[in-house]
């Protein structure tokens, strides 16, 4: 298993299956943990970081946790590999961009459903991702991983504050639950701002495709909890599973129905134009592709366009990103070359017009 296997397919979480997968792209849970007896990462010396890294590697890369875990030492990995990992949501931008010599790593499960970052903001940041709305399944898996690691690692923990984290916004359960939602109709009708405000009032964070500070490219929104102290894991999960996500799904469905009822011709035109451009363009920008793929995904979900399937579209969201494009072609490319390669890949995968390729 190596990073080279990552270029021709998407991770398990982009399979496009699972409950409500027309709107819920993926479910993710992450736990933040620190090892007792060490300062948090930012205050640790180089030697201490190496010690943490070695201790974690020994515990993580074992068959007890899962077979065939891929351990990537990010200190030694090329920038392009790190970009690939960011695009696949296996490491954060912060983890990719840290100083080159900062001792840090990521362990990835063989189907990419789980990933454990070592020495990011906390000693351990572990996540499980699943396709569709599968939060309790994802939580069960991360909880098991946490139990296994805890057998051999003393976590920093205090009765009053729970699991201790470098940033006090994570203290307590250390649990961040998030769902990635595809909300193109709410965006087209302009209702998305209402969702954003409602989410904020419910103390939830709304972020774009790549988390903090990123725009909602491709109409993909990540919604996550911000409260980790004084609220049990089950409570946070139940809020998402039973209230928050079903409500947003219902809004999006209403908006889709309204568009089809009241603006059918314009709406269909928008969807078919996306198809036309994706299958015929010769040059395609990184942001443009996400917005067109979003419309195509909507078209396929509503049965307006049936020349491709959701899984292919989900994969293209990933494979058309800069890091993946360069990894697929096996060389570094400048921006104009990437735009041409992106258009070519789209025509190949969507069965579009292939001449002059």
């Amino acid at each position: 298993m190596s990073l080279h296997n990552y270029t021709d397919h998407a991770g398990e979480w982009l399979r496009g299956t699972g409950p409500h997968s027309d709107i819920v792209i993926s479910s993710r849970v992450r736990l933040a943990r620190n090892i007792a007896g060490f300062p948090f990462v930012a205050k640790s010396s180089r030697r201490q970081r190496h010690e943490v890294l070695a201790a974690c590697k020994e515990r993580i890369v074992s068959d007890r946790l899962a077979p065939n875990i891929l351990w990537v030492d990010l200190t030694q990995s090329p920038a392009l590999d790190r970009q690939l990992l960011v695009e696949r949501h296996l490491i954060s931008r912060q983890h990719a961009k840290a100083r080159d010599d900062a001792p840090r790593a990521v362990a990835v499960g063989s189907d990419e459903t789980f990933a454990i970052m070592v020495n990011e903001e906390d000693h351990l940041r572990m996540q499980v991702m699943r396709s569709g709305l599968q939060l309790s399944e994802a939580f069960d898996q991360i909880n098991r991983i946490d139990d296994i690691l805890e057998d051999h690692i003393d976590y920093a923990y205090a009765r009053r504050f729970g699991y201790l984290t470098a940033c006090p916004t994570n203290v307590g359960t250390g649990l961040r639950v998030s769902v990635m939602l595809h909300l193109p109709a709410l965006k087209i009708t302009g209702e998305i701002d209402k969702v954003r405000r409602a989410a904020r009032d419910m103390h939830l964070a709304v972020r774009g495709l790549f988390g903090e500070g990123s725009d909602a490219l491709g109409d993909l929104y990540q919604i996550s909890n911000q409260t980790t102290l004084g609220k049990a894991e089950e409570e946070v999960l139940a809020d998402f599973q039973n209230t928050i996500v079903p409500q947003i799904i219902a809004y999006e469905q209403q908006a889709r129905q309204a568009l089809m009822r009241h603006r059918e011709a314009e709406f269909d035109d928008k969807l078919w134009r996306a198809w036309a451009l994706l299958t015929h363009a010769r040059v395609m920008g990184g942001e443009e592709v996400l917005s067109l793929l979003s419309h195509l995904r909507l078209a396929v979900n509503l049965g307006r366009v049936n020349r491709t399937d959701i899984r292919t579209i989900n994969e293209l969201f990933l494979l058309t990103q800069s890091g993946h494009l360069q990894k697929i072609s096996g060389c570094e490319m400048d921006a104009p070359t990437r735009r041409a390669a992106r258009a070519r890949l789209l025509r190949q995968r969507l069965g579009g017009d292939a001449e002059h390729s």
Partner: protein
Amino acid sequence: MKRKCDRCARPATHHSVEIIQGKKIEKHLCDEHASEEGLAIKSIHTPINELLTNFVKIHSSGEADQPTPGGVCEGCGLTFAQFRKDSLLGCPDCYKAFEQPLSTLLERAHEGGTHHIGKVPRRAGAGEQRQAMLMRMRKQLNAAVVGEDYELAARLRDDIHRFEEESS
């Protein structure tokens, strides 16, 4: 594209497009007019990063002449002023050292939450003493390495290893 509010010259921050009987009605309003229209609810919660910065501002004003307002964590040497700057604590002991000033911040950041509810590590019973012990041993080890006393360092490393294995 920066749009002005439909009703005044301030920038519009709330945008809505509604379709009523096939007609599209767009509204672009500033915060004030949007809440007048019932389009926006004045937000009660502010995002956490903003909270942190505001918190930091409130607590740093008027304390400039104190050498270390809020104190220092003995575990790692972090001052509360440094925490204000980076929003990051230095080590597990910081939670004890800054318990009081942190409480207010935590309560606001976590919807009133002040105490942990939820998972407890299985070894939490003796945990806090063990953690303190480990912290002490690792500090000694650090001092030994810095002082180039490699014999002592090796011994301490063995001790730590044995101590860790005892519980596993």
